[in-house]
Every structure is written in structure tokens, then in C-alpha cells.
């Protein structure tokens, strides 16, 4: 097990570097130049040339990448070309917001998906099953931004502003700035709509997947045996069937994290949340290469680590699985 974890951890390094290199190449392949935004009204051709020299943008792409990598190995994530702020500092300020959003979105997805899938599987081809699958289909079909706007109109305007439309209130003890709104209740109010908007699509996918797995598992012999032994239906479903049916679902959950990060960009922009998603999109729009690299590095790292955790969780779900 330890060897397996070590091997996977080692694999993370080339994966993350590969992603950052591809992003590096892509950013420099698209038209646009951060120097234009940097110089603004005072733009002159001469100053642009000087600025490119200062930021090393006149170097060959590979050299630029190696310089970035060399600094990264020394713990220096670089500084924003436009504001001069250290990228690591900016990323760490934004990370808690996105992390909370993603975790809660996944929570929303599971809270909806597990009961819906169980009901759908146990009551196959009944109105309950049809309702669950239809709702799942609708959930998959609604884009996050559209659902987000509907939620905004319903809960921030329609119902007299029961939920705030935008902004962020931090959990106690997590404020990374001088001036923050800090409150547990306020935080819950702010995260509820974004997490729901982001989580519903994932819930729909997980519902369909888990329902299919459950249908397969509840027809297996060991489930029949458990029932024959007189084990209660609740225990049969939750302990014997669900746990085994969860393996493909957990795999997909890991992969869904990538979609959640992508979805966070849209949802954070819509709800004006100061998270990593808005940070990433602003950086791309401004061609702030250093910030884009920081964003890509962190999200790639998060994605591969979460998928490692998913792989390790198989041993808990199915003790027959062993890593060596």
C-alpha cells in the first residue's frame, strides 16, 4: 500500500508539470500580450519592448517555462505581471472560497443523488423511479449559469431577498484579509445558492450512475442471501448493496472534480464570489501569464490528489481490493 501511494505521488509530478507546460504553451499561442494591459494609456512601442525584456517575455517559450519552473522549485510562484502581487499569496486568499464551494457542491450532489438512486433502483419502473430519472435528466440538461440566474431571481429578488445575491462571508477563523464578513450563518447563506447551482448537474449524473450500479448489485446472489438470512431491508440496502455500488460512483466523483473547477469559474462569476474561478478567468482575460500558471498548477494538483484519494478509497469500499 505504502509503495503504491509513493508511486502515485511520484506520478503526480510529471502529470502536473505536463499540464502546466501545455497551459504555458496555449497561453502564449493565443493572441494578446499582458504588456498592453500593463502599460495602458501610456503604451508606446519602446516601453512595450522594455517591459517585455523586464518580464522575460522576449525569451523563447521553452526558456520562459524553465525560468518559471526554476523559480517554482525554490518556492517562488512568481508575481502578477499587472499588479506585482505574489501569485501564491493571491491564490491562497482565493483558495478557501473555491474549496468550500466545491466540497459543498459535491455534498449537495450526494445528498440528492444517493436517495434518488436508491429509490429509483428499489422501485424500478414505478412513478418514483420515473420521477427520479426525469429529474436527473433535467438536472443534467440545465447549465449552471442558467440555474444560478433562476435561483438568484427566486431567492434574492422573488422571495424578498432571503438569500444574498453575491459576495462572500467567511467561516470564523478563515478570513485571509483585513476586512471580511465573518459568520457561520452568513457563510451558509452565501454558499447555498452557488453550491446548489453547481451541485445539481453533478447530482443528476451521479443519480443515473448509482441507480444503474444499484440495479446490478441488488440482483446479485449475496444480496439475495442477505435477505434470506433475515437481514433488515435497510441494512441490506445501505450496507450490502450501496457500499458495493458506490465504487464506480466514487470514481466518477473524482473525475467530476474537474468539472466542478470548471463550473466554479461560471458560478463564482455569476455570484461575484472572490474565489479561484474568478481569479483564473480574470488572469486568462488579462493574459497575466504568471497568474494563469499559478491557477493551472493548483487546480491540476488538486485534481490529481483528489483522484489519488478516490483510488485509495476503493480499499475501504471493497476490502478485496489491495494495492501493492
Amino acid at each position, binding site marked *: 500500500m505504502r509503495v503504491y501511494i509513493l508511486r502515485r505521488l511520484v506520478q503526480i509530478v510529471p502529470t502536473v508539470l505536463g499540464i502546466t507546460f501545455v497551459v504555458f504553451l496555449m497561453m502564449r499561442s*493565443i*493572441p*494578446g*500580450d*499582458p504588456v*498592453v*494591459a500593463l*502599460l*495602458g*494609456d*501610456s*503604451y*508606446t*512601442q519602446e*516601453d*512595450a519592448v522594455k517591459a517585455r525584456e523586464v518580464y522575460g517575455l522576449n525569451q523563447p517559450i521553452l526558456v520562459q517555462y524553465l525560468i518559471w519552473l526554476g523559480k517554482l522549485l525554490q518556492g517562488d510562484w512568481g508575481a502578477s505581471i*499587472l*499588479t*506585482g*502581487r505574489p501569485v501564491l499569496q*493571491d491564490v491562497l*486568499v*482565493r483558495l478557501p472560497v473555491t474549496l468550500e464551494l466545491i466540497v459543498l457542491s459535491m455534498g449537495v450532489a450526494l445528498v440528492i443523488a444517493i436517495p434518488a438512486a436508491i429509490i429509483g433502483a428499489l422501485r424500478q419502473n414505478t412513478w418514483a423511479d420515473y420521477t427520479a430519472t426525469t429529474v436527473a435528466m433535467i438536472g443534467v440538461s440545465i447549465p449552471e449559469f442558467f440555474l444560478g*440566474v433562476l435561483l*438568484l*431571481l427566486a431567492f*434574492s*429578488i422573488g422571495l424578498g*431577498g432571503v438569500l*444574498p*445575491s*453575491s*459576495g*462572500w462571508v467567511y467561516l470564523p477563523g478563515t478570513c485571509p*484579509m*483585513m*476586512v471580511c464578513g465573518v459568520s457561520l450563518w452568513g457563510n451558509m447563506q452565501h454558499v447555498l445558492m452557488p453550491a446548489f447551482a453547481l451541485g445539481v448537474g453533478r447530482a443528476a449524473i451521479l443519480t443515473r450512475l448509482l441507480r444503474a450500479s444499484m440495479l446490478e448489485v441488488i440482483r446479485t446472489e449475496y444480496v439475495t442471501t442477505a435477505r434470506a438470512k433475515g437481514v433488515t431491508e435497510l441494512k441490506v440496502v445501505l450496507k450490502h448493496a450501496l457500499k458495493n455500488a458506490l465504487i464506480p460512483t466514487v470514481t466518477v466523483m473524482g473525475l467530476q472534480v474537474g468539472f466542478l473547477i470548471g463550473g466554479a469559474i461560471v458560478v463564482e*462569476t*455569476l*455570484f*461575484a464570489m*472572490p474565489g479561484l474561478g*474568478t*481569479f483564473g478567468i*480574470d488572469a486568462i*482575460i*488579462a*493574459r497575466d501569464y504568471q497568474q494563469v500558471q499559478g491557477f493551472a498548477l493548483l487546480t491540476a494538483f488538486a485534481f490529481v490528489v483528489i483522484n489519488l484519494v478516490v483510488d485509495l478509497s476503493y480499499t475501504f469500499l471493497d476490502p478485496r481490493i489491495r494495492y501493492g
Partner: protein
Amino acid sequence: MRSTRPALGLGLGSIALLALTFLLTDLSAAQTPKRGGTLRVSYGNEIAHLDFHTAGGYEMMWVAMNVGCGLVNITPDGKFVGDVAESWQMSPDGLLYTFKLRKNALFHDGTQVDAAAVKFSIDRLMDPETKSGMRPFYAPVHSVEVIDPHTVQIRLKHPYAFFLHMLAGYRTGLVIYNPVATQKYTLQDRQQGKPEAVSGCGPFRLVEWVKGSHLVMDRFDKYFVPGLPYVDRVMIRVIKDPVTEMAAFKAGEIDFIASFSPEHVDTMKAQNPRARIMTGKETTPMMAAMKVTVPKDGIPMSVERAPHPIFGDLRVRKAIGCYGIDRKEIVKIAFKGQATPWVGMALPGTLESVNVNHLCPYDPAKAKAILAEVGYGPSKPLTFELLTNTEKSVFSVITTVIKEQMARIGVTANIRLVDKVSWLNSTLQDGPWDMYVEDLLSLLTIDSNGYLSTAYVSKNSSAWSHPRHTDTKVDDYYARYAREMDAGKRKALAKEFLEYMADKMYWNTISGSPFYMVAQPWVKGYVYNAEFEVHWDNVWLDK
């Protein structure tokens, strides 16, 4: 009965008096500014950075106007009022301005705002190393002299009719820098918004700026105007999505929208009948610019120029930009009629604006005839690229309407939609483009247009002179206009200049680009002055 009538009258009189007293008290209370509270402002775009002398964008400028102070401000009716300057005088020849400064003005770190600070700031703006976008406007300044700690003299090389306009309202105007803080902290400290480095002398002191999250400024208790500002704090948040912005406004989460999207004004009015929606005569031109020259040697920004293959010919510029574009139709579709169709480069809200619409009536038959004369027609169709960017959705609507209008005269316009940075790259760096749709800087005077002030391509040319025409007559016009101190003669020059620009189609305006601010009904005391002056020191919250 007799005894009761006076008593009844007395009673009614007393009630009426009481009611009147109550009403008057209530009215006076409603009019008396209240101290305290937080003004919650929303921005649609990010602040670039906080070095006020070099950053671009209105979002930064509106912070600069509240954290910083200058010498003078300009009122909506064009009058100058003192800021740190309590009085000023211009010499009869228009070459010497003497400003007397207030004695009680302090920077936020407690140091005195004095004549040396004014000199330091203007010298800094004029220094090419500072790379300030304001520098071209200080070109007429010969020197700045400290007469005594509270008197500063600015000597000009030649008369400059808009010197006070420039100090007050061109972009940020003059923002006086604190020499101590500027020397103590680095440029990066200021750009990143380190509060000690951004030590201004305005009504609010910077507390914190977290890019992508918020900017907070608190009341400066030692502000030189006693009693101001009224609010304790201004909290600025960036809400990019107009729907979210409207939802936040409707829910009462924000008090003031600093720049509101014109497309959503009707919805805002319908949803918030009590909201104060502020606008005025347009000052920002919506343009369909045409490129006049291209580099002869293929090297961008080369001084060797050749006519643009399509729009280098004045006849084609006039056929397309003048007679081929139906400005009224564009305004009707893109702005729902809430803008002014306009041809001249100075909009109705710009000082000394002249309506030259008669020079470019929509006349598709004439446009076709001119194009035929040039040689374009069914056998040789004219096709050009119509560039625009994603910054505002209205740009795409306008380009689509223009494409349709071009089809009516047998011309094909291929739309190329890019993001703002790519657009800047093409236009600033003399890239390959034919026509673009964009709205540019808000113009207080014709002179404040930096985009054509050094229009011809030379070592001193402006990268912002996108069409890159080589007509030095434009520069002569600018110089004569800006140096003319006689208002009557200047007005005549402005007319001549604007007609010349329209005739040559170096600058092709379609219409004004309306600007809106929105405030909650409880926000009192704000004086709307377009994008030029955004001050929150007089604002109070009637909650």
C-alpha cells in the same frame, strides 16, 4: 356654542400647527445630512492597480478621486471649484497660474499638503520615466515653482485654454502625491495597494484592496473640509454580471452602481421604481473607426506609411463610414433609442461640441455610386473585416447592424469578435484591421482626446491614434484650438476642426455611448457629473 367654537378653532389650529411643525421637522431632518454608515458601491470591472498616475480605467480613477485630492474640481455646469487650492489666478498673458493652497490640508499619514507636494506631483507626471497617460496633457507646462509653502506657480510654454479643465477632469485630473510616502515606498507597493504607500489627501483613506474581492476606504477624520465626508466607510465590490448586480441592488445589498449597463436600464427602472438612475448628455463616442494607413515595410508602427488597401481612399471611407451607415437605425436597435446618433468626434455632452450630422446623411444610393466610381461593384465586390471585442455586448449588436447595412450597399463586412486584450493588441500595435467598433474615452473637451492629438506617425506619435492617418493638419488644429484663449474664436475653430475631421473621416463616430449610474433612494447628496468627477464625500445615507 359660542364658548366651544373658539376652543374648537384653537384645537384645530393647534393640531395644524403641530402637524406643520412635525412636517417641517421631518423635512429638515430629511435634508440634514446624517453622519455614519457604509456606502456599498459596485463596480462592473476590476481596478487595474492603485498607482494613480499610471493605472488606466475609470474604476481606478474613481478611487483616485476619493483617496486623492487635486488643485481644482469642475462642477457639472463647467465651473471650477477649489479642492486643495483655495484660490487661483491666471496672468493676463495666460502663461502663469498662481495657486494659493489651503493651510489645513493633510495627507493621510499626517504630513502637510504643500506647494512642494504639488510641484513634486506635476514633475512626476511630466517625467517620461513615470509613464503616465496624463503626460501628453502636461506638455504645455514649462515649470512649477514653489513660492512659499502655500503658494505654487505653474508657468506654461504657451497659452493653454484647457489647463484648469485638464487639472480638474481629464481622466484622474491632477492627483497630488505625498512626496514622503512616494519616496519611502516602491511603485509596486502603490500598485498593489499597500495603504501606507497610497497616502492621499482626499476625504477617504485606503484601508484595503484585495483584487477580485473588494476595496475599502474609511473616512479621513482630518480631511480639510470640516464635517466631510459623511459616511464612515466606502466598500467597493466587483460584480461583473449585470443580472447579479441588479439582483444585489434590488435586494438592497448595494447602494450605488458606479457604471450601469445601458441595455439593462429599462429592467432596472421596472424593478426598482424608486432607484435614482443618473445620466446626462453623452460624452463617450461609439465609433466605427477605419484604418487609414498601414506600414509600408510591413513592420508595425513603422514611420513609413502606405494607404490602407481599402480605407486609405477617402472616397471609400466616405461611402462606407459617412453615407453607408444608418446611425439612427443603429441607435434604435442597439440602444433602444437611448443614445444620440452623431457624426462629430465631440459628443453633445463634450464642451464646444458641434453637431456636424448634416455632413453625413444616410444615403445608400450615394454610397453605392461612390463605390462604383472607385471601381467596386458586382464584378469587384468590396469585402472588409469588422473587428470588435467582447467587453460590451452592445458592440456585437452594432457590428451586426453594420454588417446588414453594408449588405444593402453590396459590401460584405466579415465580423471578427475577439476579447479586449486581443483587440488592444491589434489596434495599439498597428496590427491588421480594417474597421472596428468600440467606445473610447469620455471627452470633457475636444482637447482631452488623446487618441488623435499626435495623430501622424512619427517618433512622437501616439499608439492610441489607431487609424494612423498622416495628416499634420489635424495636429495644427489641435494646437490652435487648445491655445486659443478667446472663447468665441475657439468655438469657431472647434467647428472648423470637427467639420474637417468628419469630412476626412479620420474619426468616425456612430453615436454617443450612454453612461448610467444608479443609487438607492436613501443615498443622498451625490452630484452626478458623468465619469469626470465621482466624489463620495458629500454622500450621506438617509436610512
